[in-house]
């Protein structure tokens, strides 16, 4: 009796209390899970599954291997010092002839990413190869198109040998594979992604800072003014928020352009001469101004709701105890608004980093952020592998920043009200 009393507690039925407790709670847990299940399924289907599908696309390189499997077998044994053997030419010829039209179309698009020109070469060859009845194939293929004798084209196939590739991720940071699958930098004239990543990051950080600096006083006013004024101010904040994004962007173009409202007022007031009109749009300045105004409500509203909960008696107490107003503000009021700053800052940053329509319309040549490239590869070049890689990197950057933020400030320290 004393042993069991030391080791476990028993219920009156003789079953251990732990087991009994678990059983009675299981029903509650199942019920709770069943209530959450629809939302969980929804999240999995609309959110988690597409993200994994995108990540899968960014490393997928199976296309080639389904169309040219035998060629790639022989390819692995090739020494790459001179043109391939007749055997490789013959195998490729057969696989081109027998391939399904649609599959080979996709494959040739993929080959084109590695070396421009493969696409039209395969297309032309598929048509003209019908004229070749029998081997030897090497001479006849070269007669159809000189590119078959260009060793660079054959070498480019080296990048596509494996069914899984990190090639897209490399391209996304201005690197590439050479024909031996070693990592090298892209030729200088093709390096655009690294500078774009920096530009995107720089603009997002600047926009977040400007929104904070401009939004903090607004939220403070909203939280502390008497109701009839703060209501009016609130309408002033919300009305632009509800206006269409494109309308706001185009309005900024009209205000900021060379012959626009802002410049014309300055010239009329004699502040600047007519020839020295300021270039405020189609450059980084315009992007920053427009994006700050558009993302301002996202900073103001979380800050406002946090500030509303701060009792004014703290400040009064601090002043009463002899603190200077600025000192009291810095030591007492601001620390209490940190959760709001975190929420607003995070929101604005995440939105800014993915923005691409506004920068594209007002940023001119400095307005091509990473979103523009994702859209370009999605729509025009149809390089969905590279598009997914860019998106995956963006996701990874955001997760890393979130983790860093959590370490520094702590995620429990975000409040929306």
């Amino acid at each position, binding site marked *: 009796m004393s042993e069991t009393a030391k080791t476990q507690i028993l219920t009156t039925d003789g079953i251990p209390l732990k087991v009994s407790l678990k059983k009675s709670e299981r029903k509650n847990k199942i019920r709770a899970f069943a209530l959450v299940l629809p939302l969980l399924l929804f999240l999995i289907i609309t959110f988690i599954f597409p993200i994994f599908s995108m990540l899968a696309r960014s490393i997928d390189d199976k296309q080639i291997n389904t169309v040219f499997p035998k060629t790639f077998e022989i390819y692995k044994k090739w020494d790459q010092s001179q043109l391939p053997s007749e055997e490789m030419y013959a195998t490729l010829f057969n696989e081109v002839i027998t391939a399904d*039209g649609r599959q080979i179309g996709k494959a040739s698009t993929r080959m084109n990413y590695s070396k421009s020109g493969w696409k039209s070469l395969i297309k032309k060859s598929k048509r003209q190869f019908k004229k070749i009845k029998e081997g030897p194939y090497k001479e006849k293929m070269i007669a159809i198109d000189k590119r078959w004798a260009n060793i660079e084209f054959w070498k480019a196939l080296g990048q596509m040998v494996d069914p899984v590739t990190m090639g897209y991720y490399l391209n996304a940071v201005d690197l590439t594979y050479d024909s031996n699958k070693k990592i090298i930098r892209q030729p200088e*004239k093709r390096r655009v992604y690294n500078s774009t990543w920096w530009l995107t990051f720089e603009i997002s950080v600047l926009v977040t800072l400007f929104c904070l600096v401009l939004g903090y006083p607004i939220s403070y006013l909203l939280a502390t003014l008497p109701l009839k004024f703060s209501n009016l101010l609130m309408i002033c904040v919300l009305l632009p928020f509800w206006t269409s994004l494109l309308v706001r962007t185009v309005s900024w173009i009209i205000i900021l352009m060379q012959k626009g409202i802002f410049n014309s007022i300055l010239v009329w007031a004699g502040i600047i001469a007519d020839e020295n009109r300021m270039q405020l749009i189609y450059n980084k300045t315009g992007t920053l101004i427009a994006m700050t105004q558009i993302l301002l409500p996202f900073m103001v509203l979380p800050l406002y709701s946090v500030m509303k909960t701060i009792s004014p008696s703290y400040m009064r107490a601090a002043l009463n105890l002899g603190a200077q107003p600025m000192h009291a503000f810095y030591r007492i009021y601001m620390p209490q608004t940190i959760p709001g700053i975190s929420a607003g800052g995070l929101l604005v940053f995440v939105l800014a980093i993915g923005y691409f329509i506004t920068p594209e*319309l007002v940023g001119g040549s400095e307005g091509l952020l990473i979103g523009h490239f994702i859209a*370009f590869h*999605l*729509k025009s070049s149809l390089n969905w592998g590279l598009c997914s890689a860019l998106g995956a990197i963006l996701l990874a950057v955001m997760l890393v920043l979130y983790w860093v933020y959590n370490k520094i400030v702590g995620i429990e320290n975000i409040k929306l009200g």
Partner: protein
Amino acid sequence: MIKSIKVALLAIVALAFTATAYADFTFVSWGGAYTMSQQKAYIDTWGPVKSGKTKVKVENYNGGLGEVKAQVESGNVKWDVVDGLPVDMINGCDEGLFEKLDMHTWEGGKYNASIKENGAGASGPLSECSAPQIFWTYVVIFDPKAFPGKKPKRMKDFFDVEKFPGKRGVHTWPQAVLEMALVADGVKPTKVNSVLQGEGGTDRAFAKLEDLKGHVVHWSAGAQPLELVSSGEVVMSIVYNGRAGAAILSEGASFDYIWEGQVLDGDWVAIPKGSKNKAEAIEFLKHATSCESQAEQAKYITYMPMRDCGTKIIKANEPWFHTGVDVLPHMPNTKRRLKKSVFTDPVWWADNNAELKEQWTAWMAGNK
């Protein structure tokens, strides 16, 4: 009383549902004055639309095969007819994104012969999936009021920022700009493609583009360059010729063209694979690309028909434009202008677009 209101409401809701029981046919194009011309010339003149049997929904898009690819791969094709650029038509047909059309059987077998030039240096359709539409050009326009003295006349004036100071409008993709750079560098328009595609051609074009450094404003949507020129933000700009023509003829805008070095491109129409209204779409295409429709669209916008039977109808019936003026003077394909024009090569661009876009973006980024 309440009961009759309820019945009335139910009837209205039921009516709304039956209204959608008509075949909903979706036509997708670029928007603005261009789509308006297509609406008036092809859709409103189509039999089933005139009799009310079919309702055609018109949607806008900004080019590229992204939406088409997404629809076809997911099996949920919402678009029935898509108007696109030659480079997208070639790529789309290769990837199996469009239905194959038997154009050689249309109009009793005489259809293909009427396409004398398809933009790739040959006659007949460009691919098996796309039906011919119009030729349009990238052309340079300027506001004559911006140049009180000498007016720019040649393509090299567009690149000469000392003689003709001011900013230039250039679109955010490299097609046509490289060709124009070579013309400005002294290459004869008819030789531009062979130079561009030859050794060092693109490098030569990019070297010429350095002349414009710091003087460029970039546009991405068709209506933007017209605003840029008329507001004085730029003194000259590359535009789609039809938008400029519509502005001049319909709205009385005062623009002048630099015809030398204009770069001709085409627009074709195709049916996404798996479209639910395929049979109807084919009937629509036969009507929309008929000789009469080809001529009809020129009443509203200054784009040139691809089939020469369309051009013949216009010539025989001038003044043809809907405001009662001659339209051929604004068309890019007069014999004299064609001698100074470049046909952009869609096959070469299909191959090299992705790579050149990267080089182009690096140039744009250095263009502060």
